């Protein structure tokens, strides 16, 4: 952490070269970009480690605890390796390890059929993504003398457009798979929820960011931007990912699943920023490209902070109430003040409320979108500002989504005995969450302390002097607003002295019970109805009537949502492969004479080939 902060401020690379030992050049260099992500990793890693210290001892014992403590640091280390690597080999080494270790960590919680299936999909998609990444690295080869980053950077300039495009697309797909942009997000909601909470915090908070890092490395550092349609592609990906992510999140009742989907959404937001930056670069509007990039990176950091905070909160909740189904929670804020407050801060940040960190990134992003209208190309001038609308829509739905989460899970009456008997979690957990929450608020009120260093990072990537003042105004205003709101609240609080606790008005009924509260499904119903097109949910309502009609004994409502991507994209591919394999299998007839025939045919074919080659 110290190291990270140090070279983050000093910015000059400290490099470590182990090439002597390894068959391939294996070097680590920390330039500003890596330093920033290093900082991000540590900023999340430290609290998570603190959290897991007591989490592990509560949940695991013996071998499991040991393996947890073995794998968790290794996992962090692999991510550090990824962001600090300065040769392709080192990068890929860390990249693959990262996948494997995370899978191992997930496995610690057991290996039921479903879990294994999810991990299977996770690993498979990661492997495919890694293949794309490897390819995008190796595509540099004909032009770069070796695969260390400096020479790749140098080579990128001289490469033909086609190759550059290929590299861009490959890295887009490869890192997109890791980042979980639609339609490569399939694994994310499968893998994150089943991991132990600290691990899912790391996966969502940090691991996804390594993909962002990789993408930025390639597109901005190596390739230095490209034609305008790259930007549009990324923008499109971001918009679709963001919208679908938050819409899927809205319908979930499992806390961690919901958070996983909201990670998808936030990745989408980050990609929006990156896309805008690319568009600006294509138009040579470097200053604003810088704003967009800074916004994206800042949002990456913020998301790392509040998403890990939320996942830790989820972990605390499952500790206290032994469930993650928010339909069974409620009233937790009363019973777990610290956790609840921290979680509330997390919610406020993730929906981008001012005075919380989530807002700063989004504001800069919106600001840059508006600035897009100044661009000469009509298409940019229309598309970028409209993206602001998309971002606002995402934000609006996010408000609904997290109002639901917090309102149902932490407020009102407990909906189950477990929730009623929930108690505050261990101190170290509280401290961990408080730290994260504090950092969220701090960045939210004084964004300057993150924006200015990030400007330095962006400057290194874009080679432009500095941000336009228009984009910095926020960091001056927010403290004032914070002060203003604070003062007003204190003043107002003075008005209300007397307070009397009474039962909630029950429309004359004897008393309200928890069944009468609004459920999570009910809460999200209006929005689900509005966007029903997206969900393609198949619903079933079983009404069980007692002897007479009109007074049903029980009404069972089930709504199954399978994302259409799984059905329309992945299934067919897998089926195709399996079919091909089974056909090939038939060729292995078991009849030796046929085998001999194969040999003779091969021979004849080659002889013919020889005659014509």
């Amino acid at each position, binding site marked *: 952490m110290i190291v990270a902060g140090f070279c983050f401020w000093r910015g000059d690379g400290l490099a470590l070269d182990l090439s002597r030992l390894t068959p391939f050049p294996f070097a680590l260099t920390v330039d500003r970009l890596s330093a920033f992500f290093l900082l991000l990793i540590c900023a999340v890693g430290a609290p998570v480690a603190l959290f897991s210290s007591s989490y592990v001892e509560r949940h695991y014992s013996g071998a499991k605890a040991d393996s947890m403590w073995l794998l968790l640091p290794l996992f962090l280390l692999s991510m550090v390796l990824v962001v600090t690597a300065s040769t392709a080999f080192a990068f890929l080494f860390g990249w693959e390890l990262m996948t494997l270790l995370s899978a191992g960590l997930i496995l610690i919680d057991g290996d039921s059929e479903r879990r294994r299936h999810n991990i299977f999909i996770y690993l498979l998609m990661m492997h495919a993504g890694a293949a794309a990444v490897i390819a995008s690295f190796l595509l540099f080869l004909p032009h770069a003398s070796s695969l260390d980053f400096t020479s790749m950077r140098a080579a990128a300039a001289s490469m033909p457009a086609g190759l550059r495009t290929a590299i861009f697309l490959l890295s887009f797909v490869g890192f997109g798979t890791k980042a979980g942009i639609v339609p490569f997000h399939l694994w994310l909601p499968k893998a994150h929820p089943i991991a132990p909470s600290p691990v899912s915090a790391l996966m969502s908070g940090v691991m996804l960011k390594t993909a962002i890092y990789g993408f930025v490395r390639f597109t901005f550092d190596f390739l230095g931007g490209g034609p305008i349609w790259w930007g549009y592609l990324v923008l499109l990906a971001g918009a679709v990912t963001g919208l679908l992510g938050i819409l899927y999140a809205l319908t979930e009742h499992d806390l961690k699943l919901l958070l996983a989907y909201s990670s998808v959404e936030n990745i989408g937001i980050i990609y929006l920023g990156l896309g805008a930056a690319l568009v600006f670069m294509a138009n040579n509007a470097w200053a604003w490209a810088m704003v967009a990039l800074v916004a994206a990176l800042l949002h990456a950091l913020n998301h790392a902070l509040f998403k890990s905070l939320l996942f830790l909160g989820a972990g605390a909740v499952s500790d206290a109430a032994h469930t993650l189904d928010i339909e069974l929670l409620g009233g937790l804020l009363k019973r777990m003040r610290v956790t609840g407050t921290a979680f509330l801060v997390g919610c406020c940040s993730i929906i981008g409320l001012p005075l919380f960190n989530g807002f700063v990134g989004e504001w800069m992003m919106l600001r840059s979108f508006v600035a897009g209208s100044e661009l000469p190309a009509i298409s940019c001038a229309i598309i970028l500002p409209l993206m602001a609308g998309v971002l606002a829509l995402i934000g609006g739905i996010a408000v609904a989504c997290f109002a639901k989460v917090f309102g149902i899970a932490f407020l009102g009456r407990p909906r189950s005995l477990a929730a009623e008997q929930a108690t505050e979690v261990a101190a170290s957990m509280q401290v961990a969450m408080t730290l994260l929450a504090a950092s969220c608020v701090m960045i939210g009120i004084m964004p300057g302390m993150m924006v200015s260093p990030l400007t330095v990072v962006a400057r290194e990537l874009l080679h432009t002097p500095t941000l336009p003042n228009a984009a910095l105004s926020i960091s001056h205003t927010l403290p004032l607003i914070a002060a203003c709101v604070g003062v007003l609240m204190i003043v107002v609080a003075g008005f209300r002295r007397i307070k009397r606790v009474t039962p909630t008005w029950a429309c004359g009924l004897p008393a309200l019970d928890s069944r009468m509260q609004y459920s999570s499904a009910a809460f999200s119903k209006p929005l689900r109805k509005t966007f029903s097109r997206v969900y393609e949910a198949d619903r079933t309502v079983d009404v069980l009537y007692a002897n007479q009609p009109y007074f049903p004994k029980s009404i069972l409502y089930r709504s199954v949502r399978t994302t259409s991507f799984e059905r329309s994209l992945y299934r067919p591919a897998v089926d195709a492969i399996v079919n091909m394999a089974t056909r090939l*299998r038939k060729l292995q007839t*078991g*009849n030796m*004479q046929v085998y*001999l025939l194969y040999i*003779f045919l091969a021979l004849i074919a080659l002889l013919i080939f020889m005659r014509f080659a």
Partner: protein
Amino acid sequence: MGLIELAAAKALASSAVFLFITLLMMASAKRISTCIVLFSIQSAIMAAEILAMAYAGKSVGAYIVAALVIAVKVVAIPYALFRIMKDLKASQDVASSTTGAQSVFMMAGLILLSFFAVAPYAKTLRLDEDLLAAAVALLLAGAFLMVSRKKALMQVIGLLVLENGIFVAALTTTYGMPLVIEIGIFFDLLMGVFLMGLFVFRIRDTFEHLDVSKLRRLRG
């Protein structure tokens, strides 16, 4: 010129034709024993050929090779095959998957094909065309027998014919390889036939039949 030269010249000139005849007869043969006999005849022809060459080229090594051929291919292997057949007490039928007529026609076709195939090489390498053709024909014929005959023994015989083809090729092109190599190849051949005989017995014991086309437990 003496009688022997005449004989040698005749042997060299006409051996190819004889080889083709043996092949055609093999194709039409219904019984395994016939094929074995034909094989030994075939080998004998080759032996004669080598003797002729040895006489023409005055090389001692060639005589030894000829002796080996007679010893191994004309006598030993056919004898071994007959023994195996006797011990197996299995039916004589070659169990062809093609009718006799079809086989003969295919064989003829293969012979023509071989002529067509070797033409360019024979020109460039200044080789005796029909002997080279014979070599290739033997190769193809062996392959054909292995693919089309279902009996394990016939596979062995097909393999031997194929081997003969290679042998003839070596002979016609380079007047034989270095002696040591030749001997080694013969040894291998002998071992191979021995082993295959062993396996034939094992097949018989474990499967109660010798139809290799029915050995289809392992697939996929």
